């Protein structure tokens, strides 16, 4: 029995040390990979899509439950004396700017409240030029450009793209590709598109100049996109990029994969798989849409224009092909009017 208890007394510390060594090795490997990618990026080498074991492992995890537990933890009210220490530690770890917070740190009851803080008045002046479109968030520009060709594809990372129709929803009022250019749509989607074309306000051709009428003096319209990534330490409220009318809101439940740089390189269809809220409408130049896409640690999206919308809800295992829940804002055709720079939504923790 003494040798037994002796064995046990070595077992726990041994297992702990082994676990710590393994985690240390994994972390070192991760740092090495990230450093290699950083060097590649600095040389201008485009990192390619490369699914890995970790991405497959993530598919098996209960990410939504993890996200909700994370939200409960960060929603715990902290003692007032502790708050500045916790928020300063968070700011140091994630490079947040504490000077811009609208309230003194003691006023934020939990990390969750601090995370979705408003900024002091005047911290984000809105570019007054009526011909410009402003950034709706603080963040890093991942991709931007004009959508051409019949698939209207956005590159997630070199070697992998996703369709704007999948991102925004197929019943979207997206400018319809001139009929006949829609090659690979199934028959009911063709009829759906034809149906939409009766509803839609206008049509443009993304496909080819053959449909463009180069003689008319009317302005030619293109479809543009911009993908902006928010780091954990960034200000996480979403503002209106222009003055526009929001006509439709679409909520896709989906998954809650992480949205960091590694995830975009290794997880297929990340942007069209994750939970997201899409606002769609019209601005002075035509179609406008914003997609706010959640992630494991920031899984909830709160709409100030529709406070009753709840996201990141526990749900039984549903297929991801569940159609989005859609709401047309009243009055139909006018919807909700937003001014440029106005607060629209916020990403919440968990």
């Amino acid at each position: 029995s003494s040798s037994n208890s002796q064995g046990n007394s070595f077992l726990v510390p041994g297992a702990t040390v082994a676990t710590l060594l393994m985690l240390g090795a994994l972390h070192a490997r991760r740092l090495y990979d990230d450093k290699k990618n950083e060097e590649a990026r600095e040389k201008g080498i485009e990192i390619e899509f490369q699914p890995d074991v970790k991405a497959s492992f993530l598919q098996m995890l209960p990410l939504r439950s993890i996200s909700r537990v994370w939200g409960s933890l960060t929603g715990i009210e902290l003692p007032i004396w502790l708050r500045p220490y916790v928020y300063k530690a968070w700011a140091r770890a994630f490079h947040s700017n504490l000077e811009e917070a609208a309230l003194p740190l003691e006023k934020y009851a939990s990390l969750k409240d601090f995370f979705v803080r408003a900024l002091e008045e005047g911290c984000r002046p809105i570019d007054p030029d009526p011909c410009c479109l402003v950034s709706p968030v603080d963040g890093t520009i991942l991709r931007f450009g004009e959508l051409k060709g019949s698939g209207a594809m956005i590159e997630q990372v070199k070697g992998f793209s996703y369709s704007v129709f999948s991102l925004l929803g197929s019943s979207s009022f997206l400018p319809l590709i001139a009929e006949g250019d829609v090659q690979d749509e199934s028959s009911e989607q063709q009829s759906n598109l034809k149906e939409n074309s009766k509803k839609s306000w206008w049509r443009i051709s993304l496909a080819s100049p053959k449909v463009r009428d180069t003689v008319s003096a009317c302005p030619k319209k293109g479809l543009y996109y911009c993908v902006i990534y928010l780091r954990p330490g960034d200000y996480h409220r979403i503002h209106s990029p222009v003055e526009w009318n929001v006509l439709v809101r679409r909520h896709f439940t989906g998954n809650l994969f992480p949205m960091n740089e590694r995830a975009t390189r290794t997880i297929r269809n990340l942007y069209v798989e994750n939970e997201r809220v899409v606002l769609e409408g019209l601005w002075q130049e035509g179609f406008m849409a914003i997609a706010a896409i959640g992630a494991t640690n920031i899984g909830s999206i709160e709409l100030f224009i529709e406070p009753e919308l709840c996201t990141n809800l526990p749900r039984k295992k549903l297929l991801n092909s569940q159609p989005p829940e859609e709401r047309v804002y009243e009055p139909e055709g006018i919807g909700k009017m937003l001014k440029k720079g106005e607060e629209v939504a916020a990403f919440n923790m968990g």
Partner: protein
Amino acid sequence: STVVLVFQAPTLKLLKNRDSSSEFRFNIKRGDRVRVGEALGR
């Protein structure tokens, strides 16, 4: 988290009296840090 903007804007304005053509242009590049309210393009 990530925000994706999809919007329509002029690509080419053919003006009958042969003015210069105007189109939407981004004034950002990949990897730029942007803040709320800063112009992404005009």
